[in-house]
């Protein structure tokens, strides 16, 4: 009986530490991927909108340029928001 208790005590020392590390690692990898794709997606979407508006209104290439920068702003804003949300958790 005593042996088992000793053993479980020994095991306890190892288990929580390991578990914590794994979850921390996985979530930080997830965060990195989330942030990067968030940044890129906004630029792509905004540039796409700019490109098609240009085609439609025949104002090449002004709207594309304007929307590219708007997209960059949005991307940064998204990253800030996402990291705020992650920090809250």
């Amino acid at each position, binding site marked *: 009986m005593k042996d088992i208790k000793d053993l479980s005590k020994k095991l306890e020392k190892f288990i929580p530490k390991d578990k914590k590390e794994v979850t921390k690692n*996985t979530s930080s*990898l*997830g965060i990195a*991927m*989330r942030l990067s*794709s*968030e940044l*890129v*997606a*906004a630029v*792509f*979407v*905004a540039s796409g*909108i700019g490109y098609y508006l240009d085609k439609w209104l025949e104002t090449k290439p002004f709207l594309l340029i304007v*929307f590219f920068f*708007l*997209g960059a*702003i*949005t*991307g940064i*804003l*998204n990253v800030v928001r996402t990291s705020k*949300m992650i920090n809250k958790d």
Partner: protein
Amino acid sequence: MATNPMTQFEVYSIGPKIQIGNIDISFTNSSLFMVITVALISIFFILSTQKKSLIPGKMQLLAEMIYEFVAKMISDTAGKDARPYFPFILSLFLFVLVANMVGMIPYSFTVTSHIIVTFALAFFIFIGVTIIGFIKHGISYLKLFVPSGVPAVLLPLIVVIEIISYLSRPISLSVRLFANMMAGHTMLKVFGGFVVSLGILGGWLPLGFSVALTGLEILVAFLQAYVFAILTCIYLNDALHLHH
């Protein structure tokens, strides 16, 4: 042996060619692996819930763990109001997870490494969430694009930025999953090719890398399914609880 690392992503039709108008709808290897994915999930749940005992067996325990994992994820991120959407999120999570994991088996095909598949999933979520938002809040759902406490001069700019941010959701959701799966599988194949070309003398190092990368890829496969599901919950939360 195919040395081109991109050949693994090729979609080809198996069986007879079926065409409706200009659209080719023949059964491809991609469709086959989607069917396998759905079949695996169905078989697993049918088998594990067949003998419902108070003290669960191994299969039942696993099914219950999956259920609780997803239920907890939904209640943590989207609250109680999101309960009715549990079946959808569970199916979504399991489909992406099992498709990713099936793709890890050598010589199989990774369904989620094609942007059209992930984009279809993400776009469906995007449309669904928007409809839910409009049903719940009516026209005032558009307030999502007008944050409070912004000076009137900046408002047009902010509204445009908010709309871009909203529209970029399905893109970021789909590109993340697709890019991760494709990059991972390409990298595995490239290192596998190094093993062959360096031979018995120098091939050991890339072989080690391949083993390590396989482990990493299994982690990524799980993680991306999790991120996909949790972001769906977050978007659902935005639609259900309008707060700004």
